[in-house]
């Protein structure tokens, strides 16, 4: 059974048919990277999985549970998924440690000291040990984004959604964030991510999904997609993005 399965998912904003029947599966420990032109619906896809947008048709299964069922408890579903967006969205009025432990303490009912120990452990592991007691605005962009990722993995989500987590960052800081994602992959996290960093996509992805015209137009290993793309649209997109 896959961790995430999408069956014929549709999403419309008014007349704008953004997702036109997306079928996709992400297996356990797999890293799937979604690429595609701006406006091709990558973020929308992520948001429907996190139930921030309601799908207009189709079904999304998280470890076999239909999360698009109207009777589902959305908070419970969201608690099973870790999300990091382009902007770090750390809570500015909380210290790093409180940001990271918030969900564990207030949603999952973890004891404060247990949550704290785990958070400090994670922060230290990812080079943020010095920043535990700081407020977010004292951190660099890259550090903030790493804290946001630690916050997302703190409660050991079944699936991690990462939407262009480096595109708001200075190129100098991109590396440290991507290294963290590589570490997570090495530990076996299941991830679905959207990115414009093709070299990174190539190195970290088990599978690449090329979104075009509201659908995954071409799906394959990085070698297949980057080395020998089958569809002319894919070729065109890659040519454009790599020859900038």
């Amino acid at each position, binding site marked *: 059974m896959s961790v995430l399965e999408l069956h014929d998912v549709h999403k419309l904003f008014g007349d704008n048919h953004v997702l*036109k029947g997306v079928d996709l599966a992400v297996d356990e420990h797999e890293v799937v990277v979604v690429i595609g032109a701006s406006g091709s619906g990558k973020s929308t896809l992520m948001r429907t999985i996190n139930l921030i*947008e309601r799908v207009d048709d189709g*079904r999304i299964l998280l470890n076999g549970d239909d999360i698009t069922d*109207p009777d589902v408890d959305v908070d419970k579903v969201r608690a099973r998924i870790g999300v990091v967006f382009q902007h770090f969205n750390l809570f500015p009025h909380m210290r790093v440690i409180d940001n990271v432990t918030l969900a564990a303490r207030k949603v999952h009912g973890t004891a404060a000291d247990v949550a704290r120990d785990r958070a400090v452990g994670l922060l230290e592991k990812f080079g943020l040990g010095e920043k535990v007691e700081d407020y977010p605005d004292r951190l660099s962009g890259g550090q903030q984004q790493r804290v946001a990722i630690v916050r997302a993995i703190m409660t050991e989500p079944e699936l991690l959604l990462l939407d262009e987590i480096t595109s708001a960052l200075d190129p100098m800081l991109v590396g440290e964030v991507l290294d963290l994602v590589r570490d997570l992959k090495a530990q076996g996290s299941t991830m679905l991510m959207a990115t414009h960093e093709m070299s990174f996509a190539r190195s970290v992805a088990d599978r690449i999904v090329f979104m075009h*015209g509201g659908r995954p137009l071409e799906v394959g290993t990085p070698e297949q997609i980057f080395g020998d793309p089958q569809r002319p649209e894919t070729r065109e997109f890659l040519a454009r993005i790599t020859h900038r």
Partner: protein
Amino acid sequence: MTDRAAESAAGAAEAWAPSELELERRLTRKRASRRSVLIALVSTVVFAAVAGWLVLSSPGWADVQQAFFNPEIAKDSFPKILEGLWLNIRVLFFATIAVAVVATLLAVMRSLRGPVWFPLRALATGYTDLFRGLPVLIVLYLVGFGIPALNPENRISVAVLGTVGITLCYSAYVAEVLRAGMEAVHPSQRIAARSLGLSHAKTLRLVVIPQALRKVVPALMNDFVSMQKDVGLISVLGAVDAVRAAQIATASTYNFTPYVVAGLLFVAMSFPMIRLTDHVSARMAAREQQGGTV
């Protein structure tokens, strides 16, 4: 785009119709919302019945009904009170315009930067501090009896004096709301505007104030609703407004029903604004959040 992809994309857009599954889900949602409406209805009816029974079965109800809810007296006093309300509405109209102007000036004065402007800034600060602290009633007495005493020759109408008093008080409140809104606009917006070469004044007028207004619309509307009822206080100056008319009727009938009538009229007057406030707040919330369901 190749022909095949274009074809399949266009085909999907036209051919797509909700699947069985989606239709079933929509039904379930509709059922759930119908159920909550029903529950709300039943609980309202039960609540009203219990409350009504408690009041009607209390021993003093007959006397209370006679003294406060006398239909005859209500009918007799109604025209005079309505006439009074017309005065309240006119006062409200002019006070609103005056408050908008004075409050904006005060807010801008308080937001001026630089040592040259210190006196203006201090003046505006002092003013808002003073008038936010003063009870409206005291301001009305001071303006209503103080200004005529300065100049006993030509009499200013009490309605005008009342309008001035209300304006003095509410300008201070509204100025603070506006200022809070201006400060809530993220500093990066000012920096962005200034770095485009806009002056401080242009930055305020074109970038900061429009965003600030959007943030504080619900608070401003709330102040307006509150002003709508406080115009009833001008009756203490002797202006024959709705409250004063009710007072006169009460004095001649020894019955409190006219006050209830005036009260209901004030509520009726504020009702459209209250609903509008709710509507505007809901719409703004819907626009600001990008997510459909959070």
